[in-house]
């Protein structure tokens, strides 16, 4: 096995393009090293992108934020302005594993690993995040929702990688939130994950809504009819009931060691409602 | 003679006798006497037993004295963690 540590994006792309066998990108490594150790992954080479300075930046762009692929969850959590804008996304990435894991794990890595239960992905999808994919032909922007294609599979070509994630400018009177259910208080993989983005009108009614679900389907689900159940409402109980029911209805989970399908369907609705209320309060709506 | 209480499975091996009497002054004499007089108890005695004498557990100490009026109870062999 070969370990490569390029210092520019171009160099990294060249390395990737030159590989004939299995080649893995190393960002936080919190998934890759586990796979290496278990023998699940036996790559011929590893390209460590953490020596590329550009990928360590959190920078303002068009009123939003561009987050480099090597930025750890802990660094995001320490960035006050980012936390103020997208608390749900930051919370989601900081729910992944332990303090130690958060010191390494990245948004881009969590996305590319394409686990159906990845915590940051529903939050990013709710926030309309866009991944910048780089490859031999330059860069292309892909909505985060289109990156995972199934458990462990993503839409990247073998000579591409994600250089950054873009979180768009957050409109006034809007906010996001992410909740997940786990059996313990920490350290578990999400049994259900739910990211919600809400924008309120001046009168406090819901002007825009997005809800994305994790761990209840082979990939992240964007539930548009659930969002529609909120738009135009005052986020009253009836609207939240409809929203919660639509989320549960959209969930198509399996039963496994982490929970039964029936449990996941029910808890999807519970979390969606709770997350929507958090987002509403953050967006300036009255507390319930 | 010492009265010995047997636990259920031992009792059922010898026709549901829950108490037997054995001439014994020590633990070893007790165990030898039981095996001799009640051959049906042998498999379990070979697998191991613990013995409570006046409320204290003994496993192996042959020469533990037993008094005529001691309370003697056979128990399944104890193991710990």
């Amino acid at each position, binding site marked *: *096995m070969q370990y490569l*540590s390029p210092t520019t994006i171009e160099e990294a792309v060249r390395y990737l393009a030159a590989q004939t066998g299995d080649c893995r990108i190393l960002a936080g*490594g919190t998934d890759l*090293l586990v796979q290496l*150790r278990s023998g699940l992954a036996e790559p011929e080479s590893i390209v*460590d992108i953490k020596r590329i300075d550009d990928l360590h930046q959190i920078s303002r762009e068009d009123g939003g934020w561009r987050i480099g692929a090597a930025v750890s969850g802990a660094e995001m959590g320490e960035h006050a302005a980012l936390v103020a804008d997208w608390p749900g996304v930051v919370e989601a990435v900081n729910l992944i594993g*332990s303090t*130690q894991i958060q*010191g*390494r794990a990245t948004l881009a890595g969590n996305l590319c690993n394409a686990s159906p239960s990845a915590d940051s992905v529903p939050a990013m999808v709710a926030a309309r995040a866009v991944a910048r994919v780089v490859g031999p032909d330059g860069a292309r922007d892909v909505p985060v929702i289109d990156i995972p294609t199934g458990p462990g599979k993503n839409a990247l070509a073998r000579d591409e990688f994600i250089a950054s994630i873009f979180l768009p400018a957050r409109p006034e009177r809007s906010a996001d939130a992410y909740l997940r259910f786990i059996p313990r208080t920490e350290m578990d993989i999400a049994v259900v994950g739910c990211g919600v983005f809400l924008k309120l009108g001046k009168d406090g009614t819901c002007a825009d809504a997005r809800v994305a679900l994790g761990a209840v389907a082979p990939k992240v689900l964007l539930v548009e009819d659930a969002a529609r159940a909120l738009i135009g409402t005052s986020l009253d109980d009836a609207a939240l009931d409809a929203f919660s029911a639509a989320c549960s209805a959209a969930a198509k989970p399996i039963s496994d060691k982490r929970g039964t399908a029936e449990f996941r369907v029910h808890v999807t609705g519970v979390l969606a409602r709770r997350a929507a209320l958090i987002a509403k309060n953050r967006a300036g709506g009255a507390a319930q | 003679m010492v009265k010995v209480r047997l636990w259920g499975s031992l009792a059922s091996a010898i026709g549901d006798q829950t108490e037997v009497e054995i001439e014994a002054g020590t633990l070893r004499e007790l165990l030898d006497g039981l095996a001799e007089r009640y051959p049906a108890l042998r498999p379990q005695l070979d697998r191991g037993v613990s013995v409570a004498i006046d409320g204290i557990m003994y496993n192996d100490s042959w020469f533990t004295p037993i008094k005529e009026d001691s309370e003697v109870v056979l128990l399944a062999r104890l193991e710990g963690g």
Partner: protein
Amino acid sequence: MSKIHVTTTINGDPAEFLCEAGDSLLDVLRDRLSLTGSKEGCGTGDCGACSVTVDGRLVCSCLVLGAEVEGRSVETIEGMAEGETLHPLQRKFIEHAALQCGICTPGILVAARSLLERNPDPTEEEVRYWLAGNLCRCTGYDKIIRAVLAAAAEMREAS
């Protein structure tokens, strides 16, 4: 395949080692540098017994490649005491009987020091959540949490 040569700093001292591309930092510390204070409880980042800091950031050394620490600064449990003088956390762990078997202790001490560097006055809940990635099976965590809070109080008074 030739090995990778790595130059780094460990507990303030310069260090060099050769490793395979797939060797974890934990493998390197334990097997190549004889720093066996960092323990492997799981190898998957779930127990925290291998906790170290790299450039001041708390990580599981089982989830870091040895090759990654080229030019970095690594701190392990072996660097926590200064000569004969124990770190207040180490002292409080002994005073509060915060260890039974002791296998999780190095990782917990490294993690707790990292917490107190960022937050000198944590609440009980903050300590519990910060240390959620450090499994202890002996103590039920009670005496560990008390020891960390006591060390924090002492360090605040001293500073």
